[in-house]
């Protein structure tokens, strides 16, 4: 890794952004981070996973790796990050693979256009981890037609195949490992946050990052043998914000009264209690499906689910040699069928490690070496 990586924070107002609800007064601008090489170089754009902003710990790892390998690096939030939903989403209802990818594609064009003038870009590659991996692939498929960014290669790191079956599996894991029932879940969250507070003793930290969260969740769940539950819990924390924003924008009235939404000074404590008990299935049934069924004539719940599979770009994945993927045999967001499907579509352009769970091996020597080989077009074979 390089000793030092320069960093610029870009805050961009998108001209097509919708009015921002009062309660999101702090999320008016899309925030991204850029590290420029002092010489002409390829640009690697990296998309965060579910609920992540453009500067997560995982993005920092990838930034260091890519910058060290000679790339300009632009890291951007997931379309499920509240700051993106408010400043750049065209719907406010996150979770639709194609719509979210289109919104992010539009935002990326503007961000790239606003990079410092002296930046000389020789090529553009796109990467994403977790849900960001699926976004990356779909964005490239859009760009293959529109050619506005001229994205060359794309790498999906631990992507889901079917958004809703992955999160359905996470719901299941959550219930199995943690149980259901509002009071049980709320007690769990209290233990989790108390762990975090303990982690932060004698430091001045009071914000949560992925690494701290995983440490705290591992301790609370005592699930060394089954790290999947930790992943499930971290996804559920992201759901609180996705659900709230979706309900507010869609006007579905599950936790936000559409006629009297909370103002900037109002407490959200009770809403938080309700949302922490919600599952991904609840989100699909109560917010996502009602919104998209109303806005996509002719669609059905089944078609909405089908539209959120990587199947929508199956042919491209199979035949275009510039799509790559890396994942793990024990990734809890993939079923055996999902993994088989990925292998069938990508052939030698996927590498599957035996262990690592969901992103547990990100930044490890072999994973980094393979990633750079793929990006450079030198990748020879999968495992």
């Amino acid at each position: 890794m390089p000793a030092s990586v320069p960093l610029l924070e870009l805050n961009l107002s998108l001209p097509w952004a919708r009015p921002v609800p009062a309660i999101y007064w702090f999320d008016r601008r899309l925030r991204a981070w850029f590290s420029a090489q002092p010489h002409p170089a390829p640009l690697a754009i990296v998309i965060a996973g579910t609920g992540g902003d453009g500067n997560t710990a995982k993005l920092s790892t990838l930034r260091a790796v890519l910058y060290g390998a000679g790339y300009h690096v632009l890291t951007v939030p997931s379309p499920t990050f509240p700051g993106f939903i408010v400043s750049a989403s065209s719907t406010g209802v996150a979770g639709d693979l194609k719509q979210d990818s289109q919104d992010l594609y539009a935002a990326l064009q503007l961000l790239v256009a606003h990079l410092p003038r002296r930046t000389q870009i020789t090529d553009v590659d796109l990467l994403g981890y977790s849900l960001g991996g699926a976004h990356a692939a779909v964005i490239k498929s859009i760009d293959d037609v529109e050619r506005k960014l001229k994205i060359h290669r794309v790498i999906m790191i631990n992507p889901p195949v079917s958004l809703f079956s992955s999160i359905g599996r996470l719901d299941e894991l959550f219930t199995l490992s943690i149980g259901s029932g509002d009071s049980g879940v709320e007690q769990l969250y209290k233990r989790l946050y108390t762990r975090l507070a303990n982690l932060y003793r004698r430091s001045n930290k009071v914000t949560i990052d992925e690494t701290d969260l995983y440490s705290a969740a591992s301790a609370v769940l005592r699930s060394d043998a089954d790290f999947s539950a930790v992943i499930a819990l971290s996804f559920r924390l992201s759901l609180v914000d996705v659900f709230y924003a979706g309900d507010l924008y869609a006007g579905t009235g599950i936790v936000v009264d559409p006629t009297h939404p909370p103002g900037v000074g109002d407490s959200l404590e009770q809403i938080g209690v309700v949302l922490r008990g919600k599952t991904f299935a609840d989100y699909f049934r109560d917010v996502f499906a009602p919104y998209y069924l109303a806005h996509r004539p002719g669609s059905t719940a089944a078609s909405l689910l089908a539209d959120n599979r990587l199947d929508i770009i199956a042919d491209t994945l199979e035949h275009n040699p510039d799509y790559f993927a890396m994942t793990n045999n024990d990734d809890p967001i993939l079923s055996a069928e999902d993994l088989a499907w990925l292998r069938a579509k990508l052939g030698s352009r996927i590498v599957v490690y035996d262990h690592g769970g969901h992103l547990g091996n990100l930044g490890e020597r072999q994973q980094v070496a393979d990633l750079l080989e793929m990006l450079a077009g030198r990748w020879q074979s999968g495992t």
Partner: protein
Amino acid sequence: MRARALPGLAALLLGGCASGPLTVHHLPPQTPAADNAAAVALAASNPFQNAADAKDGPDVVSGRSAAVPPMHTYDPWERMNRFFYRFNTRFDEAIFLPVANNYQRLPAPLQAGVHNFFDNLAEPTTVINDVLQLQLHSGLRNLGRFIVNSTLGIGGLFDVATRTRLQSSPTGFSATLGRWGLHPGPYLVIPILGPSTLRDGFGLLGDYGLAYEVNVADLYRGAKGYALWPIDVTDQRANTDFRYYASGSPFEYETTRFLYVHRELLEDEALHAKSTPTVINRKAPDTVTH
């Protein structure tokens, strides 16, 4: 929190807001290797301790029954606190962070010198609080640190003491009040300073009073004091790993409140248990101490 910061913050109440479609902040470069080392040190020095697990019963902050949501935190001044949380967010973005980011572009040894200097200036207050807490061993160690760093460390510019295994263990008047049984009280967002509790607020005043009375090298009187405050405050901000609404979430206020108050309660427990405080070196500047 160093005592000198409180009045000095007012000196930074100047400046304006950026506008236009794009704003660019030049951030200090990331240092992956050093950050990794710091993260490992943090993890090693924070073994999961019993205190965090134990408190699943009635909410110790609110003192209320199980009917109250378990994540509840006592916050009777919530509207005012939320107002100042918003104010602080804007102040931070417009003034505090740009100044701190520019400060972090200074050569690392210079930053380390400034940081060490102000840390050393705060040691006498720490020693007094150690004594008030009956933590005589810590008091002696911190007194030793002050003597070593003020002399061999050339007025505190170099943290020689840490290199001679006299580890820093800062404490303040709020911890002293906690040691003698005073509850943290309601959550309080202090203008500019940020998340706090009522006891912390009194603690800051107490620390400033002590520092003013001790008046190391006559630095707390007259023009010298006013000149040093903004530097001290900038150094503190540059070394505080917190950014308002980095989460992008409207629930951030509740999360921060819970984490802050419970962190303080866990600190109190540790102090009551007379456990040896775990020492976390602050961020980047300390990595280049001499």
